């Protein structure tokens, strides 16, 4: 299978600031890729370079077999991070304008627009002005605008920011549907959970560098579970009692109960029957590392700030959005 996007040693600076440093990347056709990393990591700059909105200082870039996205703009759907609408324009006219600019200006355009508006629960807004819509509604419009022309490659920069849970699910389903239709989808997010639920391939970016490029399966095997989540039925059980169980090195209270670590030579899997035999449990499972855990494990060595600070930085972005 050929690659939809190829990047070789791409570097971009803004004055003294290095935004992206030596990124190599191959995104095969039909893949669903997630770009993750904290705010300011270089995700948007990378995406803008893929879109030929910015141009790399060094390195090579190929999009859909062309040297530049400009040559294949009509085959790409793009939802930028910095997005807006023409406030005074009617919703229908705005989408028609964007569709025509994307080369989808056929006689069926209006009908396609109506179908899409119905699909995202906005059937009755076609004649309203864009400014009358809520931010979340506007975001759905922008998503429609980016896929109206049925592109082969869809690039979504922070598509979930500002959406409520219901609309997040709706958008996730729409993205999955595009992927299942054989289109290449790339999206960026700083909310790792989103990527975990949706992607089959993750690219992690931290401070302009690619720190991880692997499938979800690879990540799971590479980052084996190292502990067990254990929740006794008896809420009054103390950590000391759990630590007295054979094979347990330490137990630490966790929001889900206890995180229990095995002694050397004992695997977390071995711990499960031992803990279950020691006392009745309402929950007992292997603790699989989340992407956030993986990210922290990877970047911990290269950063001066501690784990708590990195976690706070990641979550901070979540709350402000």
């Amino acid at each position: 299978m050929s690659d939809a996007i190829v990047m070789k040693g791409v570097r971009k600076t803004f004055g003294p600031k290095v935004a992206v440093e030596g990124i190599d990347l191959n995104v095969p056709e039909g893949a669903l890729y997630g770009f993750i990393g904290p705010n300011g990591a270089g995700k948007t700059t990378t995406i803008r370079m893929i879109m030929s909105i910015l141009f790399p200082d060094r390195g090579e870039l190929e999009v859909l077999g062309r040297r530049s996205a400009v040559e294949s703009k009509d085959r790409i759907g793009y939802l930028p991070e910095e997005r807006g609408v023409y406030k005074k324009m009617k919703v229908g006219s705005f989408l028609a304008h964007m569709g025509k600019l994307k080369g989808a200006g056929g006689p069926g355009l209006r009908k396609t627009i109506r179908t899409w508006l119905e699909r995202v629960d906005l059937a009755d807004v076609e004649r309203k002005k864009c400014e009358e819509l809520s931010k979340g509604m506007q975001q759905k419009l922008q998503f429609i605008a980016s896929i109206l022309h049925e592109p082969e490659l869809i690039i979504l920069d922070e598509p979930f920011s500002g959406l409520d849970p219901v609309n997040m699910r709706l958008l996730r389903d729409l993205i999955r549907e595009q992927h299942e239709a054989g289109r290449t989808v790339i999206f960026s997010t700083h909310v790792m959970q989103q990527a975990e639920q949706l992607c089959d391939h993750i690219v992690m970016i931290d401070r302009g560098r690619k720190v991880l490029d692997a499938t979800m399966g690879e990540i799971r095997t590479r980052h084996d579970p190292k502990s067990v989540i254990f929740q006794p039925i008896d809420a009054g059980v103390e950590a000391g009692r759990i630590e007295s169980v054979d094979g347990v090195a330490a137990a630490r209270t966790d929001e889900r109960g206890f995180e229990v670590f095995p002694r050397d030579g004992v695997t977390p899997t071995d711990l499960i029957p031992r803990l279950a035999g020691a006392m009745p449990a309402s929950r007992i499972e292997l603790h699989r590392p989340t992407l956030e855990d993986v990210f922290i494990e990877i970047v911990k060595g290269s950063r001066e700030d501690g784990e708590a600070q990195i976690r706070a930085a990641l979550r901070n972005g979540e709350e402000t959005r």
Partner: protein
Amino acid sequence: MRTFQIALREFLATAATKGFIIGAFVVPGIFVSAIPLIVILAMNAAPPKVVGSLDVLDKSGAVINGLREQLSPEKLAERRADEKEQAKQVQSKMTGGMTPGGNDATADAMLEQMLGEVPQLTINALPADTDVEQAKKGLDVPYSNEHPGERLGLIVIDPDAVHKAPDAESYGGYKLFKRPKLDDRVIDQIRDGTRRAVLDARYAAAGETRERLQSLITVNAETREVTESGEERRSSEELTAMLPFAFMILLVMSVMIGGQYLLTTTVEEKSSRVVELLLSAVSPIQLMTGKVLGQMCVGFTLLFIYSGLGIGALAFYKLTDLLSPMNVVFLFVFFVLAYFMIASLLAAVGSAVNEMREAQSLQTPVMLLVMVPYILWMPISRDPNSTLATVLSFIPPVNPFIMMMRITSSDAPPMWQVFASIGVGIIGAYACVWFAAKVFRVGLLMYGKPPNFRTLIKWVRMA
């Protein structure tokens, strides 16, 4: 195709708004339709007739009889007829000797309105020993038309108004004490009559007559322009001087309005963040070209409306021969050149800033450029082939404005200069668009501190 789609949206988003329609159509429409309205008002609302008496204390003793005559209704009416004739002559001089198409009646009505109805004045001569303070009593009551025949005022003529006092440098005169709220047209007539009476008395004292002195100080003169066909035509200097100004204003207005809209919509697209969505579909150059072309159509629309109104007005006064069709063609050619230069610079400004407020400082130099033809229209229309005018008509971006003034002036420049100026304009427009495109490309995605000129130059090098 995409550029066209951008242009179309730009044009509709600007010209199909209430604000634009009101500004471009309704306001001039009101002006035009107001003219007949004013005429109707003028015909119906003639001022009320003033009837009353005037006390005269003639200390010189030589003016009272002349004054009685000058302020008699017959004399007042006669002078009214003279004034009307003079006003008509001034008007005909303004319009090059041609009377406005069939609207003599309206002109008369407006004159009548200006002059007011002839007042009926009764003159009471006061004895020479009357105390002025005593005579002034009662004049502080405001005048009202409801009580005709009342005293309107008091004229006190100085003793030396006719015969100069032996050591004095000048003659004496008179004082007019009037009641408050007396119609100022009536006061003008009283003053005019009194002045004439005093002068007549002085002429008589010097053994002269008004007619003889009048003929001594009058020189008859007429200017006729010899046209190419050998015919004579009475020239109309005032209009000839106004024509370059009108063309320049037309050009400046349509360029600036189109350019200003371009600046506003660019800033709007940037601040509403719709620009990146657009850039995923079109290149910055396509976007800018589309926007520039769209607003050019807005400028064209204005140019059509206003030049149409202008030509209509000239046709109304049967003055269309002042206007050569070639000049209108040049107007549109120079509009395109000036528009590309000015508007592309404004588009660059719009792309560089985050909101309208920040645009002010960068916009000022562009505005100053447009002020140049405003400041220079007088010297250039007086001497359209001066060194200053010739040099400026080859310096972009002011050359379209300057050349337009020269072409429409009484002494048009040689054709080679016109075409050379168009050539320079094309080069200037290309350079401005090139510069603007570079700034536009970098500026559109730059948020944060608004740039200064040095930053803009850096962007041009960067792009």
